């Protein structure tokens, strides 16, 4: 069916229509809630069309890495559960989930949005460890973008727990948040035939020839990229995709308060 589906999607794209009636550069209607998980230090819940993703940020006290004794740590993980889409199976993390978490991680890390040095409590002994967990509840494509957007919103909302005798008291939160110096937003542009689309659905993802995820910050500066899919991209293609991604990221900034 994948071939038949691909042909069908391509036929529709020739006429400038996507299977759900959107234009090529149209984002699905999106709602964002914050603070949905009370046990997390920060959380965001995005619904975008059929896609439904929750991101929680957990901040705990831990020992720093020996080679970087004065910086805190950031870790992003994504979990693709069978509940979110029947195509996923239980078991060790799939390549797709590792890719999603690493691309989101790279965007936040390379943009230097979080000053890791500021997360140090006592050099060589105690630092704040920031964990970002991306969990799609209903997976209908575009996990990297929506996970990344929800991640940055959750990080912005996050408040450090109170420090009591060198231990975090998760019942009491301080007013200190993580000071984000910029807001990196990943946008995936998918190439199907000769067409470039944003915010692909699961079906569109599965028939895509190639995709390029571009993370950019407010002033349009790029901080990370990731190419996927089997087909190659020409320089011209990449130019178009990056321009589209940066333009889209600018539009998405209005969702971050």
């Amino acid at each position: 069916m994948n071939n038949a589906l691909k042909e069908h999607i391509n036929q529709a794209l020739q006429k400038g229509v996507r299977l759900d009636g959107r234009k090529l550069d149209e984002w699905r209607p999106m709602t964002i809630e914050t603070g949905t998980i009370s046990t997390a230090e920060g959380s965001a819940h995005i619904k975008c069309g059929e896609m439904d993703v929750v991101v929680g940020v957990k901040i705990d006290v831990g020992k720093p890495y020996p080679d970087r004794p004065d910086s805190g740590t950031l870790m992003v993980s994504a979990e693709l559960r069978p509940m979110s889409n029947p195509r996923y199976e239980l078991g060790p993390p799939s390549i797709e989930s590792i890719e999603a978490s690493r691309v989101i991680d790279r965007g936040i890390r390379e943009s230097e949005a979080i000053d890791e040095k500021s997360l140090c409590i006592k050099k060589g002994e105690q630092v704040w460890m920031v964990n970002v967990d991306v969990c799609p509840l209903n997976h209908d494509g575009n996990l990297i973008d929506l996970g990344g957007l929800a991640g940055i919103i959750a990080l912005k909302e996050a408040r450090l727990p109170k420090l009591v005798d060198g231990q975090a008291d998760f019942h009491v939160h301080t007013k200190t948040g993580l000071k984000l110096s910029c807001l990196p937003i990943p946008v995936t542009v998918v190439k199907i035939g000769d067409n470039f689309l944003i915010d692909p659905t699961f079906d569109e993802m599965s028939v895509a020839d190639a995709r390029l995820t571009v993370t950019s910050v407010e002033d349009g500066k790029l901080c990370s990229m990731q190419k996927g899919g089997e087909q190659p991209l020409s320089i011209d293609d990449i130019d178009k995709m990056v321009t589209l991604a940066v333009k889209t990221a600018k539009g998405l900034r209005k969702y971050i308060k």
Partner: protein
Amino acid sequence: MTAAKEKSALLVKDHDVVVPGEVLAQGMEYLPSQGTYRKDENIYANQTGLLIVEGKVLKTIPLASAYLPKKYDVIIGRVQDILMTGWRIDTNSPYSAVLPLKDATFDYIKKGADLTAFFNIDEYVVCKIFQVTSQNLVDVSMKGPGLRKLQGGRIIKVNAAKVPRLIGKRGSMVMMIKSATGIQLIVGQNGIVWLNGDPEQEVLAIEAIRKIEEEAHVPGLTERMKKWLEKKTGKKIEIQEMPEEESYDHRPPRRDGPRRDGPRRDGPRRDSYRGPRRDGPSGPRRDGPRRGPPRR
């Protein structure tokens, strides 16, 4: 008992949406049927759905349900696997079906032929269920009018409980969507829908289908959909029934006349009709000692 009878009261209205555990009626006056049960003096709902009051009988029509294979249903299935002598078909239900070689095609299939040439994995077929065993082993056939492999187009899934409303009275709803949008449309009883046509019209048809799904329990659906489609397309639409050969009624004709005129089937069933029997002994009483094991 007479005291209980006096207190009998219906606590909900006809066509209310009820939820499991909701008390529908008090007293012995009312009778439970599909989707409801009696506990002590009360009748409770078993499933989320629309409550139907038929005289004294209470039943619910579920708002959402999985498809369960039924004989003579025409469904759209996905080829799941290729077997030694046929194909395994995913029926969008807990039970997969088998399409045996002899029911798959009128062509002669040579011994050892490549079965993927007929139906390959992940292709969709319109097929008819011709047997469901008590163990829910399902057999489907491709021999019959309109049964074929689906080429091109796209598949969407709808709630199986809403399929009758989507098809409409004698296929009128399907015919309406087809004539309004000019696309090809096949609705499987299992909630799988195949569409093929102009992309924009496909989107409109899907929008219509989702609207039907959402509003299936509100009366006057056909009229509302007609107006909605006329507004969307700017075309004048006439409600028409489906021609006999395309019909969704694939049951063989009954000898004692058409089914429509037959006895109503949705009345109370004997197995859920427990009311008055409580009053007295219902069978021969076993007053004597029960017989023990046979003597050696």
